[in-house]
């Protein structure tokens, strides 16, 4: 039996509520394989943090050519959206680091405005200090794809390219034939390595998402800082114990005859059960000294940092977090809106990294960005449209930062990397990006294909940006 089939059947068995002993045996093997790796940072703790930029970040105006042929291609193709080099913060690779593959110099959009003299400086500083890497032109792919192949009927492509919802889904699942996310599949494989198996190792502060959807492990949703987990107030106190009993009896397993009612009760029961665990742990955590921006993204990442701070109380050795920011669908007024988004992103990411340093877990926590897609090279007058490949940030103490990974695309309109309307054909697949993260997280080489099977179609499953 193929390993993948085995795992699939085991997951199905677990789903059906059957005690899958063979599954557990398998997970023990995984655990052994995991523990064999050299622990870094805080014992064996590791966390992945996905920062999803909903709407499709214009990464061509995020990491921007500063000189040479790349600059002239950029200047020619971006029409009204061209950023002057004075609006860029130079990205200087660290000593021994890898410059952009085209040999050109790049800069981060500074997002500095009269009202914001800092802009994205904190993020650029993380690159320059080697804590942040840039993975170039990542996107949804099934196989490596050239322009000729893209134009050829029959070449396998992810469904519904350039559509928000579908591409955000593909980024999070990275296969067309499964409704589970790659974070969820990792959790299904590794959740048993946590001391506390009652509390999901996948937690979202950025809304329900597919990335963390697993067959066994279901994501747990919390509020951004300061709330975190909230009590169901009117059934919480000793004085309403009778009401609580009456309330919970209505939710109790077996009380509902209707499938949708069971779905509703499941959510309520999880809210009640997990609250007790998480609120206790959070209330025992020391306050973070690191300041976070007051934005929604900042508040989400602060909650993640607070949860990481109490990982031992929660019994967590492996965790996957999800946070999100919206507004990246810059069809309109992009030159005004995009800098605000990037400045918030930079501040929030830098604050989060600083918090992991404060907690002495910076080497145990890797944060990465994801987005629906990049955007078109061509302008629509004052904005850009839905594209495909895009550049992404990975940061943390285990990141081999200050380097560019992957091939820089040719930004020539109608050029070899332009799918035809300014959408850049990705040269690195989401599968490779995910596999690199998964390997660092502790998924054994033999398990990677269970997480992102299509990675087998690409030259390497490890892009090398993590130690």
């Amino acid at each position: 039996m193929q390993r993948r089939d085995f795992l699939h059947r085991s997951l199905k068995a677990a789903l059906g509520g059957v005690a899958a002993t063979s599954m557990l045996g398998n997970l023990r093997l995984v655990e052994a394989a995991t523990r064999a790796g050299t622990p870094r940072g805080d014992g064996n703790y590791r966390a992945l943090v996905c920062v999803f930029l909903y709407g499709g970040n214009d990464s061509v105006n995020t990491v921007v050519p500063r000189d040479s042929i790349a600059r002239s291609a950029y200047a020619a193709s971006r029409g009204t959206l061209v950023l002057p080099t004075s609006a860029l913060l130079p990205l200087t690779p660290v000593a021994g680091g890898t410059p952009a593959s085209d040999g050109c110099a790049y800069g981060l959009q500074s997002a500095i405005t009269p009202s914001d003299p800092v802009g994205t400086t904190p993020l650029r500083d993380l690159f320059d200090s080697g804590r942040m890497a840039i993975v170039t032109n990542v996107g949804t792919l099934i196989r490596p794809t050239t322009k000729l192949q893209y134009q050829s009927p029959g070449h396998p492509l992810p469904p519904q390219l350039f559509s928000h919802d579908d591409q955000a889904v593909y980024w999070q699942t990275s296969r067309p034939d499964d409704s589970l996310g790659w974070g969820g599949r990792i959790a299904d494989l590794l959740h048993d390595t946590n001391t506390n198996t009652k509390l999901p190792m996948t937690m979202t502060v950025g809304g329900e998402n597919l990335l963390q959807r697993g067959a066994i492990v279901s994501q747990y949703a919390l509020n951004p800082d300061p709330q975190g987990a909230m009590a169901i107030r009117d059934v919480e106190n000793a004085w309403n114990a009778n009401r609580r009993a009456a309330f919970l009896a209505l939710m109790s397993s077996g009380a509902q005859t209707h499938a949708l009612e069971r779905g509703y009760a499941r959510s309520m029961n999880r809210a009640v059960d997990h609250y007790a665990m998480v609120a206790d742990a959070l209330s025992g955590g020391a306050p973070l000294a690191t300041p976070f921006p007051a934005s929604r993204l900042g508040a989400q990442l602060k909650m993640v940092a607070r949860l990481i701070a109490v990982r031992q109380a929660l019994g967590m050795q492996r965790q996957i977090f999800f946070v999100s920011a919206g507004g990246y669908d810059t069809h309109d007024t992009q030159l005004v809106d995009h800098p605000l988004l990037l400045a918030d992103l930079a501040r929030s990411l830098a604050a989060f990294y600083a918090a992991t340093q404060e907690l002495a877990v910076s080497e145990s926590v890797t944060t990465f960005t994801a987005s629906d897609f990049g955007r078109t090279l061509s302008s629509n007058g004052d904005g850009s449209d839905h594209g495909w490949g895009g550049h992404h940030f990975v940061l943390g103490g285990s990141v081999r930062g200050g380097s560019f990974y992957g091939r820089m695309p040719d930004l020539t309109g109608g050029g070899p990397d332009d799918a035809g309307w300014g959408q850049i054909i990705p040269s690195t697949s989401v599968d490779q990006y995910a596999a690199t993260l998964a390997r660092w997280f502790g998924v054994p080489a033999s398990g990677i294909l269970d997480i992102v099977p299509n990675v087998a179609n690409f030259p390497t499953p490890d892009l090398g940006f993590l130690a």
Partner: protein
Amino acid sequence: MRRYRRLVCRFGALALVIGSHAVLAQNSLSRWPDTMFHDGLEALDTGPRSDADAARFLAQTTFGATAADIQHLRDIGYRAWFDEQLAEPMTREVDYLNWVASIPEPVYQNARVEAWWLGALGGPDPAIPTRIHRDQLRQRVAFALSEIFVISKVNGAVSGQTRSAAHYYDRLATHAFGNFRTLLEDVTLHPAMGHYLSMFKNRKPDLAANIRPDENYAREILQLFSIGLVELNADGTPRLLAGQPIPTYNQTTVRGFAHVFTGWNWKNCYQGNDWDWQYCEPGPNGSYWLEPLEPVESLHDTQGPEVDGNGQRYKQLLNYPGVTLAGGRLPAGGNARSNLAAALDNIFRHPNVGPFMARALIQRLVTSNPSPAYVARVSAVFDNNGSGVRGDLAAVVRAIVFDVEARMGPYSHAETFGKVREPLLRLAHLRRAMAARAQIGRFQDWNPEFDYGQAPLASPSVFNFFKPDYSPPGELSTRGLLAPELQIHTESQITAQTNALGSQIFWGYLGQTYAEPNSILIDSMRDATLAANPAALVDRYNLLLLSGQMSPWMRAHLIAYLESITSDTPNHLRQRVHEALYLIVNSPEYAVQK
């Protein structure tokens, strides 16, 4: 096999009497919904035969049953009620905003949300107390449409234009019983939508500057407002080719439509140069925010991005069997209006629109998992209302609510029929059932999205608060059952909803010492007398909130709990009312509208 004994055979003469209230130990009581008598012979739009039937119908067609509405529906019957609703004067949010401005008060999004509450909860107009709002069906359908044709105050351009957003909502309400084609055009040319999906000031290409038309509206009108991503059978199931769904359009189609949607600007914009195009203004006091966009021909692309074998330019639109434009190609020529009309006709005639819209509206009003046959019946009415008219939405709504599945679903699909109630609609229902008002006559509940994850025109993105194909992990997805509303019932959200409903019930009642003149208060004392008899109280809420479908087990459970609360004083009796409401509105049995 207790679930099968409640099957009602519509075409047979089987008579079934279900629901025993025999005195049994609580745990042996049925946990299945209590059901009512049907002989299976009645026509679907005759009746209702019982208060419970009436309440169930009102759960699908209004913002929730009230005792008065149940009585009225029983008095005049389904058909007359439906016709009455079609004719009921419409609640206009813009009228409300005009009144707010005249007080005078500044008009912000808050005022628009007040106007929405007035339409949803109904009752006297604070401006003209003799005017009673009761256009419940229209407002419920408008709310459903607002979750399909999404604009949102979350968007910066929309948030600053309260009157335009209200006007947009009024257009949805206007067309709730109108024609889909007109609705589609009104939506397309509305300045609020124009700003939300950036069709406003979308200009023809300037290839030298590498400027191409904005694809935003082109993509979403196809994906979300009309036909969806894949070809559908008339019953809403995807058509398959070699086992795979067939895309309805591709990137060439998107750019074809993007070129069509060029050249639209404010009303009365000068037909002049680029400067005018860029800087013409939305009229005196921004009044053109309430007027359809108008074309500036010089910025409209009459050519198209594609070139055919004869060197002729065209725009690739939708291609489908029976398409009017040969090959779905819109040839070069025409003007902004004629090309827009051709493109909207091209969408409107696509065979997907019927099943797509039928399924979307059924999901908002009746059930998350309609059978293909149900979708097909409604879709057929979309295609032809019986008088040869395509897209008659009043006929579509009628077909949805009087379908055999809508009326008999709890019997034929006892374990899956229905939908999780939308959190905002649970609050609206509670307020209607309990005659909630504020002393000042206004509904200043401005940000229900904070607790309920929903507010009118406040979706986080054009993909609505939840997606129509969402299925939570576990049993539901394993069984292939959809539950869109559960996407906004995550642990943190369900907690917030439960707490907010608790606040309304335990703190927001008439007679509360700390209430402010603008607090919206439920009239719980109304039912205090009933509360002396917990069984009577539970039966009352079973009718108003659960349409009489509460299981005997839940009923006994609630009665036992309420009897444990002392009934010594009116305040204690009121406490029983609050306890009953809290447990019911947060219960799984109530959470699913069946």
